């Protein structure tokens, strides 16, 4: 099976070398996994700008309520709710997923396993175009009468199920449609990732020689495939409630609002790992390369990843401790939730142990990887507060939760995502980035990130609700308003801290030095292809002799030992 698929692609390559595809087939309607990855990256980055601007407007309103936001104007409560909703929706489904899975999954999986392309290249092209259409639908939802969805990114009914409760009509329907299309797109992507990694591995690339980021992408794709079904069913019921008058979630004729919460969070908790795991994968690739050491406990990390993925299916009700579900359910879910700390603690300890007795180079990808590690530790620890049912009675729906998920998710996308971005940029675009600008970008981002999100813990413990538009309406929050000002200043600086990145990309693409094939002296297969890899990636496919992290092997003079390099006696 693997051989036939492999042979087809190989034959295919013989034809393509003769015919040079035109502009449209190279850059727009391409089936090349690398181009599709870049397309996901571009759409994700555009959405990141939109999501960031929404955050800026929201933060201004929270720091200086009911004053005109520079560049926007006044924000009323209806508009504020739309921004809260769309910021969350955009950042989770239209920034984190396309960048961490869409862009890097597509770009890396074939290159790392030694395949010429994905198993289903045309399905891959369809997935990115369905995603582009989903983006268009979501974008248009801002401009329909009544405005965009405003029931929170979690879309709890009955608020989301009836027009009269929010005044939003088509905005909400388009929100459901955009998400349905987005799910369809990533289902196609996930099927492709799994099939590719299972069937198209080059000779010698056994499952336990796969780079960890491939394992993380596969686990993420599997979690998504297994968890999204119930939510799609839930979304269909929500759409029916809104459009043809069914009562799945409306209690007046026997529906139950909590049904949605169960369906949403059965998907929602695996979903946060769908975002986290690829980012964790980038960091796991970067750490050994820049410590010049094998990753500590390669197999242990794989088993921990799978264990965490499995546990993520039995924790969903920790989002619902105070929702009105049977209180006897809380402690079992609290126990499973806190247990998740075990596999993730294993991975964190393994990452720290990888540094032990290493020879650490502090290039930009490594700085972002270490930044992820430090911030993820904070986010993991604060998760224990939320996971404890009694503590959550007080903490749920406060800004503490907002602080927690930004330390985990925002640090996945930003620190993990940028670790990958700086690491593989030269492979993607064939040009080197400027190291100094990269380091400036890192330090500014790290400082401003903490300035923005750390005080959210404090204001959350003081009792500030996560979706209120004006903290000054509450007397108990008035003495703490300076914290909101601090957070807003941090958020504005954090947005400004991305300027060095923009300059760096522009500088690199216009005047950057051409990248060598393997600038970081790394072992995995993508570095054996030219930068950028041509269509179908290699002239002759590499053959794999060993695992991906053989650094500083005693028998070899060099500090690195590529996976495709034959030795008289393979050391592992």
């Amino acid at each position, binding site marked *: 099976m693997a051989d036939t698929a492999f042979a087809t692609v190989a034959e295919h390559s013989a034809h393509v070398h003769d015919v040079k595809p035109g502009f449209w087939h190279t850059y727009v309607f391409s089936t090349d996994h690398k181009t599709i990855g870049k397309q996901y990256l571009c759409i994700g980055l555009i959405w990141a700008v939109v999501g960031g601007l929404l955050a800026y407007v929201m933060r201004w309103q929270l720091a200086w309520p009911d004053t005109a936001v520079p560049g926007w104007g006044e924000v009323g409560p209806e508009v504020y709710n739309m921004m809260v909703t769309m910021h969350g929706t955009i950042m989770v489904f239209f920034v984190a997923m396309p960048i961490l899975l869409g862009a890097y999954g597509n770009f890396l999986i074939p290159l790392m396993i030694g395949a010429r392309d994905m198993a289903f290249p045309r399905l891959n092209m369809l997935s990115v175009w369905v995603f582009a259409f989903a983006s268009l639908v979501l974008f248009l939802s801002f401009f329909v009468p009544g405005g965009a969805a405003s029931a929170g990114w979690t879309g709890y009914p009955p*608020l989301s199920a009836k027009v009269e409760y*929010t005044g939003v009509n088509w905005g909400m329907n388009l929100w459901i449609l955009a998400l349905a299309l987005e799910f369809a797109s990533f289902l196609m992507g996930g099927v492709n990732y799994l099939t590719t990694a299972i069937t198209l591995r080059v000779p010698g690339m056994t499952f336990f020689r796969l780079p960890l980021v491939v394992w993380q992408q596969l686990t993420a794709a599997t979690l998504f495939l297994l968890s999204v079904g119930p939510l799609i069913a839930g979304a269909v019921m929500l759409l029916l409630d809104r459009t043809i008058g069914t009562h799945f979630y409306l209690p007046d004729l026997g529906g139950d609002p909590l049904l949605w919460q169960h369906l949403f969070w059965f998907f929602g908790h695996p979903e946060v790992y769908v975002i986290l795991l690829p980012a964790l994968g980038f960091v796991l690739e970067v750490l050994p390369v820049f410590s010049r050491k094998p990753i500590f406990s390669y197999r242990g990390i794989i088993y921990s990843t799978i264990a965490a993925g499995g546990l993520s299916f039995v924790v969903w009700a920790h989002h619902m401790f105070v929702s009105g579900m049977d209180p006897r359910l809380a402690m079992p879910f609290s126990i499973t939730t806190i247990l998740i700390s075990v596999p993730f603690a294993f991975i964190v300890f393994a990452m720290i142990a990888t540094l032990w007795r290493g020879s650490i180079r502090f290039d930009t990808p490594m700085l972002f990887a270490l930044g992820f590690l430090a911030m993820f530790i904070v986010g993991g620890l604060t998760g224990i507060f939320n996971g404890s049912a009694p503590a959550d009675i007080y903490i749920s729906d406060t800004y503490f939760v907002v602080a927690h998920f930004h330390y985990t998710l925002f640090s996945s996308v930003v620190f993990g995502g940028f670790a990958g971005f700086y690491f593989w940029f030269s492979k993607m675009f064939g040009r080197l980035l400027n190291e100094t600008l990269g380091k400036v970008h890192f330090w500014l981002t790290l400082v401003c990130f903490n300035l923005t999100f750390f005080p959210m813990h404090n204001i959350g413990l003081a009792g500030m609700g996560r979706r209120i538009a004006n903290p000054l309406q509450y007397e108990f929050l008035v003495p703490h308003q300076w914290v909101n000002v601090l957070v807003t200043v941090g958020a504005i600086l954090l947005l400004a801290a991305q300027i060095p990145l923009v300059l760096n990309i522009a500088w690199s693409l216009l005047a950057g030095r051409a990248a060598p094939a393997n600038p970081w002296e790394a072992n995995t297969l993508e570095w054996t292809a030219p930068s950028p890899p041509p269509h179908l990636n290699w002239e002759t496919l590499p053959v794999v002799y060993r695992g991906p992290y053989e650094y500083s092997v005693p028998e070899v003079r060099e500090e690195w030992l590529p996976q495709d390099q034959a030795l008289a006696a393979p050391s592992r």
Partner: protein
Amino acid sequence: MTAWPEGGVPMLNWMRWLPENVSTYGGDIDAVISLIYYVTLVWFFLTLGTLAAFLILYRRREGRRAAYVTGDRLKESAWILVPLLIVLGLDFWLDLRGAPVWAKVKSQVPPAALSIQVTAKQFNWEILYAGPDGVFGTSDDLQRENELHVPVNKVVRVVLKSKDVIHSFFLPNLRLKQDVVPGRTIEAWFEATQPGQYELPCAELCGFGHSGMKGWLYVHPPEEYEKWVREQWRSS
């Protein structure tokens, strides 16, 4: 914008940020939060300290090669398996400490001295008092908007309903939060320990008026509560 708090509260000292607790079980919840806070604080310094130490000790230097350690042998992996066992132990300890607190607040409603119905709607709390006969649905029922009057040191049972969307009944000073779900009747309880006025925000996004949807809890000393009752039901 208001001034920096007196003495400048350090951002890392989280327990000082909780509002004053005035309920019988609030102290238990605070103890759980405090326990988690100190456990995680120790891990925070341990892990980030180790990370920082390794980054300094093992930075790249000329002529020094990294050690080839795969972590595959049991002896090596003991370095992370032992801390992992400690994590597992702490997990169960936190669950063990938390379970009775959860049960006390959410499962075991003690015999109540007073029952009050709270019905949420966009964007107010309708508070219904049973009146002198102590029975709901009779002519001496009294409804007030956003004003919840209770006596101090008495167990109060709150019967929560919603007319439209999901709201959340949140008393920060009493550490009580309970979502209010349309189609369901959910019971909560509290016993306030200090007279005073405390805010009652809605904690679940419920529409454009969510921000600012709030009531007040008035906790009265016994005589003052008697006086309030007499004033309300003077006509009947």
